[in-house]
């Protein structure tokens, strides 16, 4: 178990960590910070971030938009566009505190919004598709405005800096949620900028990822056929879109979607019972352009749960541990031990084996 020797020192090693309470208990932001801080060496100060679920109980029926603005002009333009599509029930600065390591902060705003029913009806699409399109459009056409979080009762917080500095900057200890994901970034192929930090989010999806996928352009060119625009050019972005496409738009289960992105090898499929062989073959054939190759470990957050997944060769470390009703996931065991020293169990999932943890039915007020 545990990560393979030598992986910790791979210079591209990002760090990921996550925690979820299956009974929906509130976990303070400081908990996840304790985990990700331990893996300081896996980041290089060029990006850190967090996503929390269940953190906005008072506004749980509204989409929470977190936006970076270059300046107030960009904000005015974007807000005008938002007003055209949404009812904005609350608009505010996201509270931050000065941290010497966090520099060049953009304007950071938060809006709780509800799509205007007349606009949704006019487009003949469902509400979530409406929000997704609005976010995609604003991010690709509005200069100086970037919506980096857009789900209900969830929020992403990210910046250029080490993750523990980013947490301090955003006062993460003031938030509590039933699940958290965290990312420390060691960028190798994109410059470290605020929007490029992770998690990457769309609607209630958020993805933290460690790795560098070799299938990137195949995946990107496939997914862009369906209205997504990969402007960040990051793996995380394309992975988020893939899950959004497969689960929300195609109606696949998380397990089925995992068989698309980390498909079992043909030799493995050949050993399965006939019915399963047929399904897995179908899945690989149907969505061949969404197979992800190359190293990755990801944690996908969504309302009511987390999914952890490794590439099919397990080229990146990832461990999963349990303590009571809480599940911990991290690149390194040390990070988990920093969150919870006394664990019931700990294991290293197989390559391509999805670990899906959901909050027990009925626990969450919003019915998830």
């Amino acid at each position: 178990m545990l990560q393979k020797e030598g992986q910790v020192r791979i210079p591209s090693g990002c760090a990921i960590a996550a925690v979820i309470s299956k009974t929906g208990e509130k976990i303070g932001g400081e908990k996840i910070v304790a985990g990700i801080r331990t893996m300081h060496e896996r980041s290089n100060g060029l990006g850190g971030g967090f996503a929390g679920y269940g953190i906005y109980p008072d506004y749980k029926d509204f989409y929470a938009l977190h936006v970076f603005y270059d300046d107030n002009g960009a904000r005015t333009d974007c807000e005008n566009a938002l007003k055209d599509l949404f009812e904005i029930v609350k608009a505010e600065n996201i509270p931050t505190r000065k941290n010497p390591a966090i520099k060049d902060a953009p304007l950071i705003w938060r809006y709780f919004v509800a799509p205007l029913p007349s606009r949704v009806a006019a487009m003949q699409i469902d509400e979530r598709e409406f929000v997704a399109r609005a976010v995609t459009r604003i991010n690709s056409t509005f200069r100086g405005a970037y919506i980096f979080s857009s789900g209900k009762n969830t929020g992403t917080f990210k910046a250029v800096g080490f993750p523990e500095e980013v947490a301090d900057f955003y006062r993460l200890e003031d938030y509590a949620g039933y699940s958290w994901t965290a990312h420390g970034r060691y960028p190798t192929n994109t410059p470290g900028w605020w929007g490029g930090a992770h998690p990457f989010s769309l609607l209630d999806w958020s993805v933290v990822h460690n790795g560098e996928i070799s299938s990137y352009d195949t995946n990107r060119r496939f997914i862009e056929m369906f209205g997504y625009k990969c402007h960040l050019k990051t793996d995380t972005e394309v992975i988020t879109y893939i899950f959004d496409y497969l689960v929300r738009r195609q109606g696949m289960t998380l397990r089925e979607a995992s068989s698309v992105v980390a498909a079992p090898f043909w030799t493995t499929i050949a050993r399965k019972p006939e019915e399963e062989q047929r399904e897995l073959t179908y899945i690989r054939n149907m969505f061949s352009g969404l197979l992800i190759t190359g190293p990755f470990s990801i944690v996908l957050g969504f309302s009511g749960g987390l999914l952890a997944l490794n590439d099919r060769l397990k080229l990146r470390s990832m461990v999963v541990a349990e303590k009571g009703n809480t599940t911990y996931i991290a690149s390194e065991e040390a990070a988990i031990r920093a969150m919870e020293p006394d664990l019931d169990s700990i294991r290293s999932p197989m390559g391509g084996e999805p670990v899906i943890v959901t909050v027990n039915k009925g626990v969450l007020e919003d019915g998830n």
Partner: protein
Amino acid sequence: MGIDFISAEFDVVRDDARCTRCRVCEKQCANGVHAYDEKNRRMTADETKCVNCQRCVAFCPTRAIKIVRNPNTFRDNANWTASVVNEIYKQASKPGVLLSSMGAPKNLPVYFDRILINASQVTNPPIDPLREPMETRVFLGKKPEKIRRRPDGRLDCALEPQLELALPILFSGMSYGSVSYNVHKALATAARETGTLYNTGEGGLHKDFYAYGANTIVQVASGRFGVHKDYLEAGAAIEIKMGQGAKPGIGGHLTGAKVSGDVSATRMIPEGSDAISPAPHHDIYSIEDLRQLVYSLKEATAYKKPVIVKVAAVHNIAAIASGIARSGADIIAIDGYRGGTGAAPTRIRDNVGIPIELALAAVDQRLRDEGIRNNVSLIVSGSIRTAADVVKAVALGADACAIGTAALLAMGCRLCRSCHTGKCNWGIATQDPALVARLNPDIAARRLINLLTAWNREIKELMGGMGINSIEALRGNRLMLRGVGLNEKELEILGIAHAGE
């Protein structure tokens, strides 16, 4: 002689000290180059008949023969080259359309050679194909837009008919008639053995080869030679041939001399008659007519076979492909400017059409821009020369590549480009029984299998280097390619960055 004289292209150089007068060269040469001079007890050569097929060179037991370029030249002229001048002499002497065979030999840019492939260093690991699974299996066919579920909630796995290939390489259409029975036999055997498909070309399917149906693509061309219900049902897929890279815009012509016995029976035309396929399909003057033929063929085969539409890469290929993708076809096969042929008018072969690399890049991008890339699979050909070409083509967006010339080379072809004469000394592009017998179909099949096996290994090596362990993650992965010495427009069309970027 005199005004009509055209100096031979080649010289036959024989080392008389080595020559044992065994007369093997004489027997091997169907062109009658070599002869034995009884009186002087030495071999002679009429080099004007030599096509440089290298048959005598390969069979001379003492390695006494060399075929070299004839040093006799016209006065140097970069504009009026010797071949241009000689062609004028030929046409001044006889008012004919000049014929050629195999792919265009002109010195135009070969884009594959100006594209380089990526490899992993440091930030992600290369994968060793000898230690880890490396997958090259490919499915060709339509993928529906949405998944469907059965009443019990499980996935409904029914798809329109698909072709499953063990590797992303097929054999291109080469008709029985243009090539020999033994060639077809070797192709069929090798396709079955390697888990891919060969293609009948437009000459029908010899009755002996119905047994290889699961590995056969049956072609329907404008001449409709050999097309009947059993034929359509025999193959794994049906290909409508609209055009061919070597001769876009024209049909085919198999001379009566090649329409002998079995060829005539297979084509369902009288023995000795010229087999002429018209330039257009006379029932397809437009895209909606194509749709009708696609569906007629599907109807005739109970929607069990994918239908391929093969077109030549021409200027407007992206729009044409987009039309085909909406015509009901399952697969588009695009044949590039350098595609081979058994016979084509020289002017057409050398001047019509566009390189496959550019056509492929444009088509793949157009289909994606229109969101219909999954409606069809793309097979490209003309010309794919190496495993690296396959990898580059797949990364540009092809699902699979088809090889014709490379397959013939594996069977012995020396690219002498005289297939149209029907006197192929290697027993490939001929119907002369004595020449046909020179090609042992079992040996030829073995060589084809070796070639595909070797290429597949090389493909896996290249993929592993990129950290990609399944061919589908390479398809359309243009980030894995870089251009060298290409201008901005070329890079833009290919959709790749320049090396160093």
